[in-house]
């Protein structure tokens, strides 16, 4: 009966899926806290017309920082896990800071902080759920 195959295969599939998920999650969880322990945000400006040259370069896809003609770092923030913070702002020849760039940089920093907290919450929940599912799948 076709139904017999379904009834015996489904628990096996489920168990295999849970174990696969557990294995994949284990790889992520192990170094997660180290990965998120320091958060860095860099805000760049790029000369008009240079976007494609800088952003579509396949050799630089995985680079942590941007570089190239017309690229300039405009603001930098580093936040440790205990929230100790370093901000570095560029000033022009008159000692003035560009308020518009600062506003955009702050928006990016806020987004990154929210993302870090959400990821920590999600990984904690996922690890707890996966451990529970593994117990039940035995």
């Amino acid at each position, binding site marked *: 009966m076709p139904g017999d195959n379904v009834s015996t295969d489904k628990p096996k599939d489920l168990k295999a899926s849970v174990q696969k998920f557990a294995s994949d999650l284990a790889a992520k969880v192990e170094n997660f806290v180290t990965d998120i322990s320091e958060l860095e945000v860099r805000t760049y400006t790029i000369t008009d017309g240079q976007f494609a040259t800088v952003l579509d370069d396949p050799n630089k896809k995985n680079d942590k920082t941007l570089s190239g003609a017309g690229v300039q770092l405009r603001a930098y923030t580093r936040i440790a896990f205990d929230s100790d913070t370093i*901000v570095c702002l560029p000033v022009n020849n008159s000692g003035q800071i560009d308020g518009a760039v600062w506003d955009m940089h702050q928006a990016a920093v806020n987004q990154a902080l929210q993302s870090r907290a959400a990821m920590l919450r999600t990984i904690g929940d996922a690890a707890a759920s996966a451990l529970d599912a593994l117990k039940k799948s035995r």
Partner: protein
Amino acid sequence: MPDKDLRQAVAAFVGQLKDRVQPLIDDVTSVEISTYAAAAPLLESVVTAEDIGIFAQRQGYTRVAFQCDMSGCLETGRTDDVDASVRPMHSSTVAQALAEREKLLTVGLGALASLGVKPG
């Protein structure tokens, strides 16, 4: 065994998370916020330096001290030294750092609790 791998990974995760969260709930903790300014063309080399202070001028510094326990943290002292030119930026960064510290403490404790761990 995948379940053994997950247990080991979760144990490592819990250990690392406890190491990070524990200092936040120890008796005395502090948050330090430094705001530097550098000439625009030099910013890239400044931020990659091991000590930013060598190449950039610190224009704002705040240190906030806390007394903390499991029920929360109480501010016990604050040191401020901020130039007028960076005051709005520095102030918003201080507020952001304090809010982030509280949020990470809550989320970190929540993550540990969901895994059955109580720090301290």
